[in-house]
């Protein structure tokens, strides 16, 4: 690297440069959240697939006892939170790509957020119920 970098003149305030978000007023939050949830889901998914495989054909009491153990319940809750957050972020991008017209698009995104939140809460309540009942 022989050549020296020239000083770049940026006509923006120092605060604006630090915020780094430009006219969109938001930065890479969505992108980062999608990646962070994806990274979390890699080990959680592998754990869940192995757990399900080792309980094939099990009756409800065995599944309930398994899901109720603190470690399993915590991992299930993490799986639920990461899955439905990641699902909301991913579906949002799909709607943004294919639905034209801001009203319909925003409505679809809001409906997806609501549905993902509710599904996640229902699943979490089910796990918490299993975790708090004595088996």
């Amino acid at each position, binding site marked *: 690297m022989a050549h020296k970098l020239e000083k770049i003149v940026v006509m923006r305030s120092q605060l604006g440069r630090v915020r780094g978000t430009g006219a969109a007023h938001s930065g890479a939050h969505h992108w980062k959240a999608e990646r962070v949830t*994806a990274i979390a889901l890699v080990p959680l998914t592998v754990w869940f697939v192995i757990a399900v*495989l080792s309980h*094939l054909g099990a009756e409800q009491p065995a*599944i309930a006892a398994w*899901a109720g153990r603190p470690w399993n319940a915590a991992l299930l809750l993490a799986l639920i939170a990461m899955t*439905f957050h990641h699902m909301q972020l991913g*579906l949002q991008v*799909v709607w943004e790509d294919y639905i034209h017209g801001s009203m319909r698009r925003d409505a679809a995104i809001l409906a997806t957020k609501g549905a993902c939140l509710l599904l996640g809460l229902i*699943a979490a309540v089910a796990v918490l*119920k299993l975790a708090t009942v004595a088996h």
Partner: protein
Amino acid sequence: MPSTEAARECPTPMNDIRDALLVARDSQHGLIRRPVSPHIGIYRWPITMVASILNRATGIALSAGSLLLVWWLVAAASGPQEFATVQAFIASPIGLLMLLGWTASLFYHLFGGIRHLLWDAGTGFAKPSLNPVSWLVLALTFVATVLVWFAGYMALGV
């Protein structure tokens, strides 16, 4: 007339208006056929294109499949009867088909997602690795799906 001259030296056939509209001159004033953008209907899909759209398709499939996961958890928390209903549905032909699709989608999205994460980390963008890695993701999906279903088949002994 310039048009007849053009027709004589034209490298591409001009049988209709569409052909004629595709004729242009290059920077050396020679006649050429304009390049056309890769339209899905006539363009051979590169494997990277397949891999890209499959990641989105499996993501949507998994979103639908998450309903099954929620139902399964709620049933497990509700009692033996409710749980037996879910298990019976999953064991039915349509339930098994859904579970097979869900398994394949899960593994594709998992391996494809790792491919995307590696790209995000700044590696694997070189042209020689793009096509093999796309095939690798498909192969891993197939192997993992077959392994899991074989393990399930052995465990249940059906």
